[in-house]
């Protein structure tokens, strides 16, 4: 199992200057097993970017479990009742989708600010705050949807349909609330000028995923209810 020795490594100044944390910092840029160390390009994903994808995979698994529970439960008993979804859900959907758009705009404005093209911090800040407000509005809207359901006499335990409605929307709202925490973190870091691109990217991937997840849940509820 003999291997060839590679050239002694050179300290990569470019990397040392801007590398955030430890290690090689990325599987895409590892020293090739039979290549030259000097050929290595050191721009690699931050752990935050990798971490968020891994986290989203876990969330996907959880909602897949809820979905399969819903499908099995629908088939297991004779008590599956059809309920009409509160119309406010559609308004909430628009709000969440709009927040995705404003976040993308915010991301571009932050990039302009970071590159020095624009010196006005208020512009990216206002777009981020708008996103945060829309997110809060979505959670509030979901709360209104629960109130509507309750007013119609449909509680958590009334029938399996209402049970799944509350569980799916509440778990999703909880995740959105986590995303709001992420946005507040981004805003506070931007104020202190310590915001890293990877943090903003990770937060926005998460936020967009929440939007896509909500569209999926709405479709599921619409089909099954």
């Amino acid at each position, binding site marked *: 199992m003999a291997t060839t020795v590679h050239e002694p490594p050179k300290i990569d100044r470019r990397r040392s200057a801007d590398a955030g944390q430890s290690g090689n910092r990325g599987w895409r840029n590892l020293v090739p097993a039979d290549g030259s160390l000097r050929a290595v390009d050191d721009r690699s994903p931050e752990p935050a970017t990798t971490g968020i994808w891994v986290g989203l995979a876990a969330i996907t698994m959880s909602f897949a479990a809820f979905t399969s529970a819903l499908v*099995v439960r629908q088939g297991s008993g004779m008590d599956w009742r059809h309920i009409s979804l509160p119309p406010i859900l559609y308004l909430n959907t628009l709000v969440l989708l709009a927040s995705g758009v404003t976040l993308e705009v915010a991301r571009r404005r932050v990039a302009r600010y970071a590159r020095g093209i624009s010196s006005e911090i208020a512009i990216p800040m206002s777009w981020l705050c708008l996103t945060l407000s829309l997110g809060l509005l979505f959670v509030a809207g979901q709360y209104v949807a629960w109130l509507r359901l309750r007013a119609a006499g449909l509680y958590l335990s009334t029938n399996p349909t209402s049970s799944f409605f509350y569980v799916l929307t509440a778990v999703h709202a909880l995740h959105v609330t986590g995303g709001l925490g992420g946005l507040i973190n981004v805003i506070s870091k931007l104020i202190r000028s310590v915001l890293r691109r990877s943090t903003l990217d990770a937060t926005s991937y998460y936020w967009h995923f929440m939007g896509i997840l909500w569209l999926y849940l709405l479709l599921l509820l619409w089909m099954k209810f």
Partner: protein
Amino acid sequence: MHDMSAHAAQHHAPPQGFIRKHVFSVDHKVIGKQYYALALVAVVTGMVLSWLMRIHLVWPNSPIPGLQWLSKVGAPGGIMTPEYYLQLMTMHGTIMVFFVLTTAPFAGFGNYFLPIQIGAEDMAFPRFNMMSFWVTFVAFCVLVAAFFVPEGPPLSGWTAYAPLSAVGGVAGPGQGMGQNLWGISIAIFCIGQLLGSLNFIATTLDLRTKGMTLGRMPISTWAWFITSCIGLTAFAVLLPACILLILDRVAGTSFFIPANLVISDQIQPHSGGSPLLWQHLFWFFGHPEVYIAIVPAMGIVSHILINSMRKPLLSHKAVIYSMMSIGFLSYMVYGHHMFVSGMNPFSALVFSFPTLIITIPATIIVLIWIGSLYGSRLQITAASLFALGFISMFVSGGVSGFFLAQPSIDIYLHATYFVVGHFHMVMGVAAMFGIFAATYFWFPKMTGRMMSEPLGKLHFWLSLVGTYCIFMPFHYLGLAANVRRYSSFVNEYLQPLLPVHKFITYAALLTGGAQLIFLYNLIHSRFWGKPAPANPWNCTSLEWTTPSPPPFDNFGGKHPVVYHDPYQYGVKSSTGADYVMQDSPEEVKPA
């Protein structure tokens, strides 16, 4: 070595003060040791519970001194009720599977050694890492709290089958608050392990040092990485299942409780739920959980055996690919736990097939170990003995898996001691042997002191013989149709089996007692052991390039650069040694 950037050094400043250093530490090494300590407390608890059960099984009418203090209702006068036997069994299983077999080999040793083996100074998300441990600790406290609620812990087993686990206090002692605590504890545990798995994956992908390609990672690192991928997906399914179970119990929903269920002459106010749904969700997690316990041990054992044989395995890649296949297939076999659950018999056939397929990668790994051992001059140490013991247990326990994988045979053997013997050997004892091997091997690195080898070897032989004496007869009991979960054998047809049970109980008490040697060795060596050099086993991987114990940032402000595959043994080095370390720039010449 190359310098870390200024930013990187700030990333992990030396901790100050006792609390930051030892309690709420973000250092992966401290967190690894905390997980190990938690597993140690849990394993002692679980073992004492198993003793209580074994004693009651063979002397059902003799009081166990002090037991009445644990529960006046469950053990009046020190004699446990049948229900209390089941409650202790539930706690034994839950504590052992979740808080020992998951925490020690994966979260404990993985936390300590994964970052060092890839040349990183910490995990990708140190604060998440700290949170992961403390969340797990809270989960353990919540579970143990079930002993101290009026009716005691739940009696539904570690699998918490619905509707027994879902209907509440009416189902029996401990099914009220005890079962609530169980559900909450496991849900919290899932969150802790999800955070841990996320950290392991991001760390392995992003924080490898220069030259540490995927192919150059030690097998142990690969095992922890694969395990974290399994853990991420498995615990992400158990968490929703626990949420639905808790809602059934406290919010009156009917996810798992069927209509018209009568308990104690009362119709339960639930409708249309599916008890099978719980089993599907639980075992979708439950079977991968078996591999969460065993794959890290496979990695650890490979790592140790290669070091003791002083030569690489026959195929490094085949072991890694086999572990990957096991991880992948583990999701397709879970239905073999449910052959008699009432699910469609055709499903049983569908699940039986991948169950037999999964034995192929497992067999490949075993054959590679045995083939590599053949003709090697194995250095006999406590660590290598336990590694051999692992193989022995894994094979002995695995063979009975072939029988259980067949639905027609499983229908006969299901819920008998055959199954109990099978999983205790292949998952419980094998993983424990992996933990012991890892402890004897890495203790010098973790504490800077050597453990006593003679005591370690004595501990090994007593444990090996003892565990075979305990768990081999279980298989015979199972074939004789001895059902599990009975608290005593008053039935006439079980009376002739009582001598076998007595033998097992004696063996369990003695083998458990033999573990005191290990505890003594662990504690004595920690404080008074011989000081350990940086590389006592002449090992090649990166954890042995730093002092024992490693400094807070692992490599003293530097990052190692990796030039070689992980296991350059049996070669000629410039210093005359028979190995070349991964970070050594010298050329490797065949011996």
